[in-house]
């Protein structure tokens, strides 16, 4: 369970204003915002990279080392950001040698239909979508009960989005609390259990997926976020 209570932060032009929300186990919560405006900041705060001015974040009811209880999946563009000159297989070996479960990682890769031959390629040689699959598989391998995702499918191809959804739904089925920070309301209406709208660091509106289906979602998006 992910609980955000009265979270406030002032940071130049972007800020958070008494943000409170809760994501329970087996739920996908999509927090919509204007492109990247609030999500990067919130992601940094949630992942413990930046301390809030006030408020608290609880994972499974406790304040503890966030990296130990939640998986944080940041937006990545391509393998260039992870250009380690290493082959994919070598990188996976390294991650596994430093404590990542090889079984889980390969299981996640299989869900994405990642082919074995790509393991011999250098990370920079992988197509962006393939690289994202490896990245995603590695992030989800520790099987944390809570998952926080920062706008991961922005600009991705539909094929990759489907694989991502498959993984996400699998995680949801395993009872994990998933908080997705993004800007695509159509995507949210497809996959989310609950949706929240955040603007200028303030939570404007929350709705269940069922309620959302009866609404004019485009109008809602324009009304709340534009």
């Amino acid at each position, binding site marked *: 369970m992910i609980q955000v209570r009265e979270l406030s932060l002032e940071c130049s032009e972007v800020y958070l204003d008494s943000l409170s929300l809760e994501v329970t186990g087996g739920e996908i919560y999509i927090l919509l915002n204007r492109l990247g405006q609030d999500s990067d900041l919130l992601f940094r705060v949630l992942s413990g990279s930046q301390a809030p001015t006030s408020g608290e974040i609880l994972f499974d009811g406790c304040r503890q080392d966030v990296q130990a209880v939640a998986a944080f999946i940041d937006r990545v563009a391509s393998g260039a950001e992870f250009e380690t000159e290493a082959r994919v297989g070598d*990188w996976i070996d390294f991650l596994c*040698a430093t404590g990542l479960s090889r079984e889980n990682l390969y299981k996640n890769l299989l869900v994405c239909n990642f082919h074995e031959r790509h393991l011999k390629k250098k990370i920079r040689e992988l197509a962006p979508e393939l690289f994202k699959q490896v990245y995603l598989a590695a992030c989800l391998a520790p099987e944390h009960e809570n998952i926080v995702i920062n706008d991961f499918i922005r600009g991705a191809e539909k094929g990759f989005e489907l694989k991502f959804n498959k993984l996400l739904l699998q995680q949801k089925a395993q009872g994990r609390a998933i908080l997705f920070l993004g800007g695509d309301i159509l995507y949210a209406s497809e996959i989310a259990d609950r949706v929240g709208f955040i603007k200028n660091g303030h939570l404007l509106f929350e709705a269940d997926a069922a309620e959302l289906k009866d609404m004019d979602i485009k109008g809602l998006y324009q009304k709340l976020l534009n």
Partner: protein
Amino acid sequence: MRAFLRFERRRLFGEKKNLIFLSFIALFSAYFTWSGLSEFRQFQAEKKIFIRFEKEKVSQLSSYAQYGAFGFRLLYEASPLSLFFVNSGILQDVESNIDNFEAIKVESSFKGKKLFLKRGYFKDFAGIPFIFGSLFMLYMGHLGLVGPAYLRFMSGRMSLKKFYALTTIARLFWLDLFFILLGLGLFALVHFGGVFFSRPERNIFLLYILFLVLLLNFIYLLGQWTTVLLRFRKIFFLWLFIVWFICIFLLPEVNRISVFNQSRVLESAEKVNLDKFRNLMALEKKFRDYLKVNPSTPLDQLRQMQKKFAVQFISSSYLVNAGLETRYLRDVEKVIAGQERQSILFPTTFYQFLTGEASGKGFYGYLDFMDYIMKLRSRFIQFYLKKRYESDEVTVESFVQHDENIFHARIRLPATYWFGVLATALYCVALFLLAFGRLRRQAFLP
């Protein structure tokens, strides 16, 4: 740690461009070592001819007056270790002529093959890791931490501190191993090639390798720190080149110019020669004045007077002149000591000073050579005066015993070697900590 070592080994040696660059460094180092070895062998061959020539020259002289005027040549022989530092020394193929003239000459010959020996900067074993090794290490430091997204990802797996420290240590381990093996491998090859190295020479080479590795680590950490400082931006390559240029070329040159300016306080060597010449002429004038006053002095009495003046010369003018030369040499020594102290301030300047000294052809080699010349000259003057005025020998006996006319340069590290090592190690620690301090902000903040 083993996981990091394995992964970094694959990163470093699995990349084609790295392998090409490392092969290039290894090949060029081997080539310049081989070329140093061939120069060393050529020197040994020429040394034999030199000794034969000097022996033959004495046998052709008809009087000690002639011997005093021609004198004999003294050859500077560096240790075999100098083949690794052919171009790093200060002295290049020098020799001196010891005769009864007042000026001490230290010359370099450009005759015949020697005309083609001049190589230009850094073209020896010590120069290749310095120029290309440093460039490579700077680039490796730049790639070491990959980028902010990767750091954020990895900090989810382990603490950033642990990742940063272990990655740096693992990369430096492999890179250092390459340079250590390269140095030791070439040293062993030269050894098997028939060049004998004494125990102190082996120790000095090992200590040189230690400093080389430390210097390259410093450059690596500098590359890492610069990358972090510039927030992993792509325009970094321009900065990379600027940093490299400053460290490798600019600072050593600034150091050299600064020492040159300090050396301006030294009296001109010509002035010292002139003072010595005047001292000698003052004594000669006395002798001429005596001859003017007593123009009809018999020859045997004249010979007695010559001897008297010669003894007077040894006990007065010669001592004064030797004192002038020694004082001048000590002044030069002070400037050298100043440069040594100043070079500790930055690793690359100290490296240049160190390679100069490890070659046996450095500043201290020069001082030893000058001291040796003065001692030998003093003995030669006494020998010459004794033989010329006291002996009735017809054939000219050589002053040179055994290989006295070969100066075997003592190889030694600068006295400040461990200060240099300590200063470079402190630079490394400072860069390591500075980069980490910035890294936390660069990785997590916008």
